């Protein structure tokens, strides 16, 4: 039996409210029974049920009761505290009661939605409510904790999402650090030729934004850089950025490319990353003509001087600005920021993992990204669509859903493939006049102007065959199949298996999380969804927030997205960041731990446990001390304090013990000395 020793507080007068949540709770939990049961518990002054507790009238109900009955504890049984705890705390506070006298019981996500039997659900709800009632006896008034927000922002990833977010925030007059891993910003979008459905040129709309980033006084662009470390908390983060050596002094280089011409390799010899290996570059290069910043860089793996130190270094001679520094090492920048936007993008599915489509085995099987480069005027074929033999294909098959909608690779629909396949079909037809076949499972074209684009393509005479391709082979059964790639597919609309010989196969590869998404996630202390994309705080109501305050996500790092969606999300993330900055301060959960100095024996057991170094040993008193500003409220030290001298606000031992007892039975609480006899409850 627990004893309620008052702590100088008034005798608890509990107000209990159970929410129907429309039918969400009431259809599975006998709300009336719970309400009546709770009314019978000692300490409970008011017990009510209401259709929607989170609505204004619902909140007013609580406030009215607080004033009328002098309630000093509020328990609401409704949805998850992660959803509405804040709402009810604010309501409680408005009625003049300390908001931390409020406690929430989750009978929707934890009960009504997950239980199939009404009686069982009602019993479970009763148990949870009883636990909460017993818990609030031990609640104490707490003071809210506020911290200032540093207005500087770190944005990770210089694709279209990162660029857009950076410009939006910088235009609002706030300082932005844009960190990009590659030598240039632009991301995947810079690789595209045209964008669907408008078919406007990707470079024409992207390049102005890229140079705006470069020239913006509020943006510090660090390309070829990575975040090494981040610590702190919302409003007060500290990050270390590693700037990888380019072996070229960025501030001096003007991108004249004289050094590239002067390189002792007269011919470009090494696979060019930007063109996915379909063209060659030199050891000193610039990724593509519009690269931002316009700065060359060395590839130490291929440059002779790095390998043998015996190069004539014609590049250095050629540079009249002395911008080349082969001894350059990584540089580390430390910055203080208040919030972060992660816009780290995606990678495409590696078609080698679908060997039935012959990528890597048959030279004329390409990925869609390779084709994007191929149709691009500045690409490896200068915009010509050519087979490996250098001929224009007479027929091309576009295989949808490669690495999407497949349990063996990625379960999800990559969302953009249908549309970009249509775009590629159009461009291929335009460039070559070939017969183009689209093999699709379902055509997904929701979006402004997307369905119209599909209509247009059908009218252009592109073949649409509904069926997922089983294999791409080189064995021939008929004369027309000799020396071609044969696609074997069921035309499901006819119900017949077809063999279609083509000259070129394009695999519409799906979108995946980047390989290091999980490292980034760990560094920034956020979650990933099952498939590995960053997890938003709420799929509908907080799509760009994460479970870590001050860290936001935008673009395809959160899930497959096309350009308009990425830009929209980037704008949303920028707005969230600006709203945080404009508020100036942020309220933190006062769930910090503190040490009662009188009781602490100075055993130092807790000190090494704190991941934030919030606990220190005070030499003058020989006791441990918690710096509340650093404490994030995990409670590990509380659980480990061998003499029970640390308490955690909102999660005090007594409160948890109360909850445990209450879940199992109502143990009875010694109300200000007068003992309430424990009673076994028999609702079961």
């Amino acid at each position, binding site marked *: 039996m627990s004893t309620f020793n008052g702590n100088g507080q008034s005798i608890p007068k509990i107000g209990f409210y159970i929410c129907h949540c429309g039918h969400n709770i009431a259809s599975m939990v006998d709300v009336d029974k719970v309400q009546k049961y709770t009314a019978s518990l000692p300490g409970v002054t008011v017990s009510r049920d209401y259709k929607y507790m989170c609505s204004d009238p619902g909140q007013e109900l609580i406030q009215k009761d607080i004033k009328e009955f002098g309630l000093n504890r509020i328990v609401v049984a409704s949805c998850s505290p992660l959803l509405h705890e804040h709402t009810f705390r604010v309501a409680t506070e408005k009625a003049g009661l300390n908001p931390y006298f409020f406690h929430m019981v989750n009978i929707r996500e934890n009960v009504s939605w997950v239980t199939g039997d009404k009686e069982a659900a009602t019993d479970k709800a009763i148990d949870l409510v009883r636990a909460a009632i017993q818990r609030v006896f031990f609640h104490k008034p707490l003071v809210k904790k506020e911290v200032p927000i540093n207005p500087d922002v770190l944005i990770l990833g210089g694709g279209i999402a990162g660029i857009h977010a950076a410009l939006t925030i910088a235009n609002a007059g706030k300082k932005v650090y844009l960190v990009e891993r590659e030598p240039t910003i632009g991301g995947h979008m810079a690789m595209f030729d045209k964008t669907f459905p408008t078919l406007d040129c990707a470079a024409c709309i992207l390049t102005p934004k890229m140079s705006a980033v470069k020239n913006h006084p509020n943006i510090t662009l660090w390309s070829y850089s990575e975040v090494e470390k981040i610590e702190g908390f919302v409003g007060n983060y500290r990050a270390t950025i590693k700037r990888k050596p380019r072996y070229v002094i960025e501030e001096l280089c003007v991108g004249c490319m004289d050094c590239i011409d002067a390189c002792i390799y007269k011919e470009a010899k090494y696979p060019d990353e930007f063109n996915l290996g379909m063209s060659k570059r030199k050891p000193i290069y610039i990724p593509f003509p519009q690269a931002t910043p316009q700065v060359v860089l060395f590839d130490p793996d291929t440059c002779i001087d790095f390998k043998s130190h015996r190069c004539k270094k014609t590049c250095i001679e050629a540079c009249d600005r002395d911008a080349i520094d082969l001894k350059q090492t990584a540089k580390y920048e430390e910055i203080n920021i208040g919030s972060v936007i992660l816009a780290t993008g995606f990678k495409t599915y590696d078609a080698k993992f679908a060997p039935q489509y012959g990528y890597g085995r048959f030279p004329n099987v390409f990925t869609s990204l390779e084709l994007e480069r191929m149709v691009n005027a500045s690409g490896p074929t200068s915009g010509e669509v050519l087979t490996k033999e250098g001929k224009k294909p007479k027929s091309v098959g576009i295989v949808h859903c490669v690495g999407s909608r497949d349990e063996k690779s990625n379960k999800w629909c990559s969302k953009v493939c249908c549309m970009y396949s249509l775009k590629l079909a159009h461009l291929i037809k335009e460039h070559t006049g070939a017969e183009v076949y689209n093999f699709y499972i379902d055509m997904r074209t929701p979006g402004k102007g997307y369905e119209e684009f599909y209509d247009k393509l059908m009218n252009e005479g592109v073949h649409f065959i509904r069926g997922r391709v089983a294999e791409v082979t080189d064995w021939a059964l008929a004369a027309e199949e000799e020396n071609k790639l044969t696609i074997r597919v069921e035309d499901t609309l006819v119900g017949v298996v077809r063999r279609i010989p083509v000259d070129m196969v394009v695999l519409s590869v799906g979108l995946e999380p980047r390989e290091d998404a999980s490292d980034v996630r760990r560094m920034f202390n956020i979650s990933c969804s099952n498939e590995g994309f960053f997890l938003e705080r709420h799929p509908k109501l907080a799509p760009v927030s994460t479970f870590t305050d001050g860290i936001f996500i935008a673009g395809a790092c959160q899930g497959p997205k096309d350009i308009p969606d990425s830009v929209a999300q980037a704008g949303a993330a920028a707005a969230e960041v600006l709203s945080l900055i404009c508020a100036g301060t942020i309220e933190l959960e006062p769930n910090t731990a503190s040490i009662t100095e*009188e*009781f602490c*024996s*100075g055993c130092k*057991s807790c*000190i*090494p446990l704190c991941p934030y170094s919030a606990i220190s040993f005070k030499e003058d008193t020989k006791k441990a001390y918690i710096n509340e500003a650093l404490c994030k409220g995990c409670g590990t030290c509380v659980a480990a*304090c061998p*003499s*029970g001298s640390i308490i955690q606000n909102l999660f005090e031992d007594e409160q948890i013990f109360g909850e445990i007892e209450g879940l199992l039975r109502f143990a009875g609480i010694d109300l200000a000395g007068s003992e309430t006899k424990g009673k076994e409850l028999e609702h079961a």
Partner: protein
Amino acid sequence: MPEKPKIAFYWCASCGGCEESVVDLAEDILMVADAVDIVFWPVAMDFKKTDVETMEDGSILATMLNGAIRTSEQEEMARLIRRKSKILIAYGSCAHMGGIPALANEFERSEILKYAYEDAPSVINSQHTYPEAVYQDKSRKITLPVFRNIVRTLDQVVDVDYYLPGCPPTPKLLKQAVLTLLSGKLPPKGTVLAPDSALCEECPRKESKPADLSFEHFTRPHMILSDPEKCLLAQGLICMGPATRAGCEALCINGNMPCSGCFGPTSRVKDQGAKILSSICSNIEAKTEIAIDRVLDEIPDPVGTFYRYGLAASMLRKKIAEEV
């Protein structure tokens, strides 16, 4: 001349050390003897149960009862004494938390009897003879007290007013307790008459404990030559000091032995063993299950280590067995 307050001492399941500790008061015992009348003290003076029974209820000011409760006779005596005393003090670890005798709660009654009467190396008992609970001989009927299946603390049997912890309590604490009783200024009921912080507070080796201690290995006193100056935990010895109430003035540590927890937990802790376990484990270096287990293997008897004195008072109290 007003009557001197009456004091009694009694023992239940205990080793006798607590009785010894009363004598350890040395010359101070004279001061006590001066101030009070000792009306019942079976170890030192010849009293009979009937003597107590004839006393008026509540006529004894205070009884210091040591030892845990295992038999029906002990229960009976505890009740009797409770009735006769205004204040009942659980004296020493056994009465306070079960003490060493309560380690028997790790076994079943049947196992204990079997070991004692059959399996112990010094026993030859081919007839499987066991003590008979009731012996009927023509007209006479002799009974043995019932040997319960669980060892209890004193407060699990009768209402206890105060606790004097320790195995045994130190003379200093006893003297303080007697003086408090005589002063009439009584602390709240249920108080443990010792400081309410952990032993590290008064440990002479406190300074030598590093602030970033993490455990890679555990060892035991007989396995190493321990440094007489350095914190024992820092040497890998399991010292219960951080989870044990102060007041003994680090007697064991001064003897270069780790604290084994006889003073019990502080008032804020319900289960001493659980707390020290939590504290020590949290600071283990290893991160994988295998590596953690390897370190934990170096604590051969966790119950005996963390609940050496506190098993009867612990949350689980007794090993769960089918036979009840």
